[in-house]
């Protein structure tokens, strides 16, 4: 019987794949977005920065920052699901896979309350992922997980897979 892989090897492979995915998007670096992983679950983190302010009087996060944060997370979730599938089925060797990113068709942001000058978090849920199209819902919060400051739904065009 084949011995199971050591946990460090698995973790290292997954973390490397995620790092490669995140590092490949300049706009994520520009906004300072990081991704935290627990198993296959991803949480995006947007550390607060003065440049992200949209209303200096309140102050509040710019609506465009919130929209971008949610859209980035939706694309990460879809890409990650593809990578994860490839990794789990052993279609990739030790090197992290190279994938094409899904393209946004439309994205609707629901601004529930103003974004405070604090760190923000987001998680996405893939509601439907077909061969060509996907529908994703994203939630973002700050201090309290139950008090969302924004949510969004978007449709995406999935990249053609090899073969």
């Amino acid at each position, binding site marked *: 019987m084949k011995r199971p892989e050591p946990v460090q090897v698995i973790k290292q492979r997954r973390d490397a794949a995620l790092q490669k995915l995140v590092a*490949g*998007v*300049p*706009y994520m*670096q*520009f*906004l300072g977005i990081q991704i935290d992983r627990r198993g296959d679950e991803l949480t995006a983190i947007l550390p607060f920065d*003065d*440049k*992200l*302010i*949209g*209303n*200096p*009087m309140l102050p*509040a996060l*710019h*609506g*465009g*920052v919130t*929209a*971008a*944060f949610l*859209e*980035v997370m939706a*694309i990460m979730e879809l890409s990650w699901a593809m990578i994860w599938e490839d990794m789990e089925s052993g279609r990739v060797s030790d090197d992290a896979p190279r994938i*094409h*990113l899904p*393209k*946004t*068709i*439309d*994205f*609707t*942001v*629901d*601004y529930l309350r*103003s974004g405070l000058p604090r760190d923000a978090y987001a998680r996405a849920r893939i509601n439907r992922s077909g061969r060509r199209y996907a529908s994703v819902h994203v939630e973002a919060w700050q201090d309290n997980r139950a008090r969302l400051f924004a949510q969004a739904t978007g449709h995406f065009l999935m990249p053609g897979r090899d073969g």
Partner: protein
Amino acid sequence: MTDPETARRALMARKFIEAIPYARVLGMDVVDIGDGRAVIGMNYDTRLVGDPETGVIHGGAVSALMDTCGGAAVMSHPAAPGGTATLDLRIDYMRPAKPGDRITATAECYHMTRSVAFVRATAVDGDPSRPVATATGAFTIEGGKR
């Protein structure tokens, strides 16, 4: 814009938009504003790329431009008492913006109630005949009567 009140309002809105930290870091500039209509441009910047394979600007940066432009249109409306905040914004991405091209958004506040402003916007790159994205949104009216 001969009416001094319209001119004053336009100047106020322009100053306000240009003082927004995030609009500044994205390099937005107000091209035209007044009477519930705003035109804002954003130059190509490699930091805003979403997919290095294509060099196309991230949708999130286009969202920020649309959102700012929508807010500016609301603020410049003759019936707007002052500030505004986005309630919801939907963006449709028609095609990828050409890498290297400046993106220009035009927003129009086409209807306004005492508490809500309705906006539509279009973004174009170097080829204005084929829009890159369109948006529709609802904005709050701050400081207005209920």
